[in-house]
């Protein structure tokens, strides 16, 4: 008898299957990939002013949209679809096979990773074509972009898996998860300039990953001169990395401990 397939091999097979299933749900493909572009068009049409010298609102907004795309595609999507998979028996069936729990998680991370790459590529292409968005100009900025993206994908995915135990059923999941995401988007400076928000809102948002993701993305897409307008008057890369990693690690252990395969 040959050796049993490993955690990673099964995880990659699951990732490929997840992508295939995702592509076949046309509504979710359209929502995930085109909604950020739609928002960019709406906000781009409403706010035409520069918010700082050489910084258009669209430029500011692109950073926020990529960050909130991470939260939508990872956290929100998984916290809604995993309860559905619990309801329709996907998870119970998986539990009855040799596939390890971690392989299921790896499959989800691959799904979120691939859909984020496509989503961001589309958003940036539209942004550049329609609003003259400036792409990151130096290798350092691209490097920042990559680590913020990767840390964002990982933490958002893991937190979505961890949160999936909260909704009691797939049908009710959206009502539980969506308000949390929308409120965080308002509080974290996605739709508005963060420093113009009330201080209590800023402090509250600073507890959660989205604020740090948007700030990290601003450091990629806005000129360094804008850093002085941040709350701490700097991009706070170190703090961003620490807080996102803390959420990732905490989320990982919570997900592993509390993950539910069946409706109770």
């Amino acid at each position, binding site marked *: *008898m040959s050796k*049993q*397939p490993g955690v990673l091999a*099964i995880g990659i097979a699951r990732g490929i299957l997840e992508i295939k299933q995702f592509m076949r749900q046309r509504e979710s493909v359209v929502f995930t990939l085109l909604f950020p572009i739609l928002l960019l068009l709406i906000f781009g049409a409403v706010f035409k002013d520069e918010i700082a010298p050489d910084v258009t609102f669209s430029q500011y907004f692109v950073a926020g949209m990529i960050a909130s795309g991470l939260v939508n595609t990872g956290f929100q999507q998984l916290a809604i679809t995993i309860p559905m998979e619990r309801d329709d*028996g*996907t998870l*119970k069936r998986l539990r*009855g096979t040799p*596939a*390890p729990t971690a392989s299921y998680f790896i499959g989800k991370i691959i799904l979120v990773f691939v859909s984020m790459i496509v989503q961001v590529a589309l958003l940036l292409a539209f942004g550049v074509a329609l609003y003259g968005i400036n792409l990151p100009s130096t290798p350092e900025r691209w490097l920042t972009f990559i680590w913020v993206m990767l840390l964002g994908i990982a933490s958002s995915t893991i937190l979505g898996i961890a949160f999936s135990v909260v909704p009691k059923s797939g049908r009710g999941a959206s009502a539980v998860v969506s308000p949390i995401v929308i409120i965080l988007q308002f509080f974290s400076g996605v739709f508005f300039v963060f420093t113009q928000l009330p201080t209590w809102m800023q402090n509250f948002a600073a507890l959660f990953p989205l604020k740090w993701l948007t700030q990290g993305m601003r450091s990629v897409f806005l000129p360094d001169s804008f850093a002085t307008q941040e709350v701490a008057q700097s991009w706070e890369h170190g703090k961003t990395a620490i807080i996102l990693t803390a959420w990732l690690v905490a989320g990982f252990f919570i997900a592993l401990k509390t993950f539910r395969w069946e409706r109770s």
Partner: protein
Amino acid sequence: MSNAIEVRGLRKSYRSGKSVLSAVRGIDLEVRTGEIFALLGPNGAGKTSTIEILEGYRSRDGGELTVLGEDPATTNLPVWRNRVGIVLQSTKDGADLSVAEILTHFAQYYSNPRDVNEVIASVGLEEKRNARGEHLSGGQRRRLDVALGIIGNPELLFLDEPTTGFDPEARRSFWELIRTLRSEGRTILMSTHYLDEAEALADRVAVMNNGVIIDCAPPEQLGGRDREKVNVRWREDGALHQELTDMPTDFLRKLAARIPGEIAELSINRPSLEEIYLQMIGGTNE
């Protein structure tokens, strides 16, 4: 080891608020390697709890058990599950994947999977191999469930109410599939509501009620069925007669001697499994 499953004193209860429901109250069970073993019982008898504990889905409150020589509660689950196939009750997953895609994917989980095309053929889904899950009928869906249960080439297969909702023809051909799996040397533990199914398939049957096993025997001996009185019916002088007897052969000789030629409307029946079963269940209901 000759027994695929051994259970001693298994207990399981569920707590809801302040009340405690005892679902399984100390059962013993042996399933021999290579046999089809059926677990019968009304809803709420504890069948599913028992099977799910054996499958490693649920914890138990007490008792000892081994399944393929391992205790599912303490074994390395992924390694152990490589040897076990599980067919759950009604499922709806994989609606947007085709039969071949789902099976090809699940085959990747096992060290020694069966050939996908061979499995599709063995469950009779060749014509549906490219149909998506959502376009399968109830019976086809169940065949896919069984295909997923056997794709890993398991030594032991669990079947939880496999033919619920089937039409009679689909059930007959499904039974053939199960017999084929046994002839390949696999052990099968099934639960069912259908007595004719248990009678047609099972080498041995256990009847469960209120969390205990009230009898365990080959279907033809269940509940002392082989020792029950036999019902002989016939028509004589225009009237229907019947006789309950311990000695049907002797009785028939006398009858044949008395009545010249064919005996009209002659039938000799042992109590059906259903009659015996209903007696057993009725006798223990509180």
